[in-house]
């Protein structure tokens, strides 16, 4: 049985990137709606 690859850093990077994009977009919508 092969060893499980050690590539957790890629997983962490992808999860962080996704959170940044989605939270960033949510914040952008919030700020644009608040602008006079």
């Amino acid at each position, binding site marked *: 049985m092969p060893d499980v690859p050690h590539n957790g850093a890629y997983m962490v990077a*992808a999860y962080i990137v996704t959170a940044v*994009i989605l939270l960033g977009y949510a914040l952008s919508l919030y700020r644009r709606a608040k602008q006079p």
Partner: protein
Amino acid sequence: MSLVHKGRRITLLGLVLLAGVYVRALAFTPLERFQGPAQKIFYLHVPAAWSAMLAMGLVGLCSILYLIVKDLRFDRFAAASAEVGTAFSLVMLTTGPIWAKPIWGTWWTWDARLTLTLFLFFLFIGYLLLRGAVVEPGLRARYSAVLGICGLVLLPFIHLSVYLFRTLHPQPIVLKPSSPSLPGSMLVTLLVSFAVFTLLYVGFVTQRYALALQREAQGREHA
């Protein structure tokens, strides 16, 4: 409750549930033996691709409806969906290469599936640039509807590209004629993530649609 507040509540719920997806995917879903932890990118990459395709599908449908009935609500919804789709396709196009590097040994390859999804992203960007460039609302709606329909036409080619061309990208394991080829716990995580990304799409589009209404009202006040 106003539309913008409804959108904010749905988005907030979606973001909280997204945190739940993170916990479930990272802590309570088993590791895939051959790909290791990188396989868990799947739970974000595939739902993001689904949301981007849903967004472009609705842009296209609303574009057709706009051209038939000339109701600006369809144009407004298409514009909202295109902007939200851009965000989801950005997630798809960043998580994909991050997953590809440890598994394929390369960040990117110009095969049919990847190239067509990049083209989808450029269509979203082009759609938004076109809307920004044309000032007259009727003309803007008509031109962008044509581009939106082009995006709709692209979607089946993206889905079928893994069957039609030799590609590194795996074939669908859920959206296919036979039953999903995933262990139960992985499938549940994926389906929950699908639901949460769809909820986020609804929340974002509701907010973006409300923002367009707000801007139009401000424009009328200034005129």
